[in-house]
């Protein structure tokens, strides 16, 4: 306990690092490795939505707004307010909200930081469905 010395362990560690792979990652040149199950930007399965509005009511940061699309209420997510807790996914009775690994959400115009239900409305989601069936 009373030994006073400059630690040789650190010197050894420093020397061994000369022959090791670098500890840092070359992001963004190399895409970041995101863990499985990461809570990133939401993917909405709006064809399942039953317009109950529970997601909007329970959202801790009031990030979800129910808007009318084709006469039906659909969730619109304000990503600038979203804290990515995915309480909406827990609350939703129909599994509308799904996670994705998308985390690069920096924009220069904050108003574009929304997930609008129009962009994934059932009418637009519809075309890939026949394509999927044709591959069977």
């Amino acid at each position: 306990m009373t030994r006073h010395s400059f630690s040789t362990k650190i010197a050894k560690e420093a020397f061994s690092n000369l022959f090791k792979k670098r500890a840092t990652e070359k992001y963004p040149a190399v895409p970041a490795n995101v863990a499985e199950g990461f809570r990133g930007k939401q993917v909405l399965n709006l064809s399942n939505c039953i317009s109950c509005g529970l997601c909007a009511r329970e959202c801790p940061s009031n990030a979800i707004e129910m808007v009318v699309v084709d006469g039906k209420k659909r969730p619109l997510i304000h990503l600038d307010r979203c804290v990515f807790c995915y309480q909406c996914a827990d609350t939703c009775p129909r599994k509308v909200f799904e996670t994705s690994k998308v985390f690069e959400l920096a924009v220069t115009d904050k108003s574009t930081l929304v997930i609008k239900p129009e962009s994934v409305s059932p009418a637009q989601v519809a075309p890939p469905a026949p394509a999927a069936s044709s591959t069977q």
Partner: protein
Amino acid sequence: MTQTENIQELDIPKLVGASFKADNLPIQTGAMSAVQAPPTKVHDILKVILDADKKSALTTISCLDLGENLGVYYHMRLTKGYFTIKTEVPKTDPKTQTITDLLPGASFAELEGTDLLGVTYEGNLLSGHFMLSENWPIGVYPLRKDVNMAEVKLVPSPPQEETDDPNVYKLTIGPQHPALIEPEKLSVTVEGEIVTNVEPRLGYVHRGIEKATESRTYLRDIYLVERVCGICNPSHARVFVAAVEKILGVDVPPRAKYIRTVALELNRLHSHLLTLGHACLEMGFDTLFQYLWRDREPIMDLIELTTGNRVYGSLMAIGGVRRDLNPDHIPKIKATLETLRSKLPGYRDTYQNDKSLRLRMQGVGVLSRDDARILCCVGPVARGSGLEIDVRKDEPYEAYGEIPFKEIVYKEGDAWARMNVRMDEVGESISMIEYALDHLPTGPIKVTVPRIVPAGESTAAIEAPRGELFYYVKSNGTQNPDRVKVRTPTYANLPSFLKTAIGQNYADCPVNFVSLDPCFSCTDR
């Protein structure tokens, strides 16, 4: 040995009842063990408890608005469990006696009550503001229920006090300072190089979270209190849900308990590595700082893997956890921990024996065991002074009762001891996670709980990385809590700095301060 056994058998509620038989004080049991007493009796009851239980200290004072009266609740930490002394003062003249003569560490808790609810403690008076900003009007108490926040008009800040005494030289650390990551101000009076006085100013990141919880549902509050602190966020979420679970009378499934334990210990790992590295940075040992932070990064990846996010895991839910631990991930978690374990002996040897680190830390900020107790210190700060308090051992929660681990205690009481407590706890945490993963029970991870919490009150505590984190939650039978009181570990440890810094070199202030592992985001709430 027999004496400590006697203390463990000590029944404090019974003792208080017997000592004050003539007053016939009502004793409350259940989710919260408490006694109701008139304000004049509090000092005497406190003294009886402090004399009987040699490890007891004040955790915090919760002040709350009860309508006609203001409640002043003194939460005591005992050798086993917690005990509350409840008293009420009229709102029109909210005056009571200070207890700082018995416990100097209670000073901050009292001043906070004065600032936020207007309870005046004779003998410990507040001039100006303690927690609120300078431009907040004097006499408006934000935590009272009758305050209309929309009508509060801010006033111009009073001018800064300038001292005219040419013999007094004041140096200011903060609010923006390279040694502090977060904003806080310490006015240090020096004589030559020697510190003669320290005055803190808290509240630069006061966000009113306690008030905000009252207007949100319990479900939303979990995510709100999680954001009290970025580093120890699962601790805040877990202690809040535990307090609510106590009121509901809900038992968490065993698997959820183990998953919570894994999440909390992973959090302790990353927090301790962070602070060990940060201390090296303060002492100018950048190499070790970089190595510790490099090795912390895989732990952050594990948190992301188990919870779905690097920092805010959002894992805790009332009645269990939100996400199950994937069995396929367990080998990866174990391999990462094993890599970290293989590096620990080198770091530990450096921290214990390196000449420059010893010169910077040994004998700096020495806090004796008795001082640690009366200043109500918690966590590694108390354990570095030889005070054996660890909520995981004293009041086992989640799976801690079933997991073997060693309580790390150092006797020296200086910055070196405090940092080495953390260094040794890193190794213990790794073993605990491995044990928990090996003994993970099967079964459900969550029980369904009602949205409306019945009227009641409870306290919950947890050993967060920085020490004992304490919550008091009062429910009034609606969807929203009536009062949530948060006592964070740094808040309890700050008074010790005001004592240990005096008589030391000014240049040792940053190292002494960082050895408390301060977190102001927590402190200010």
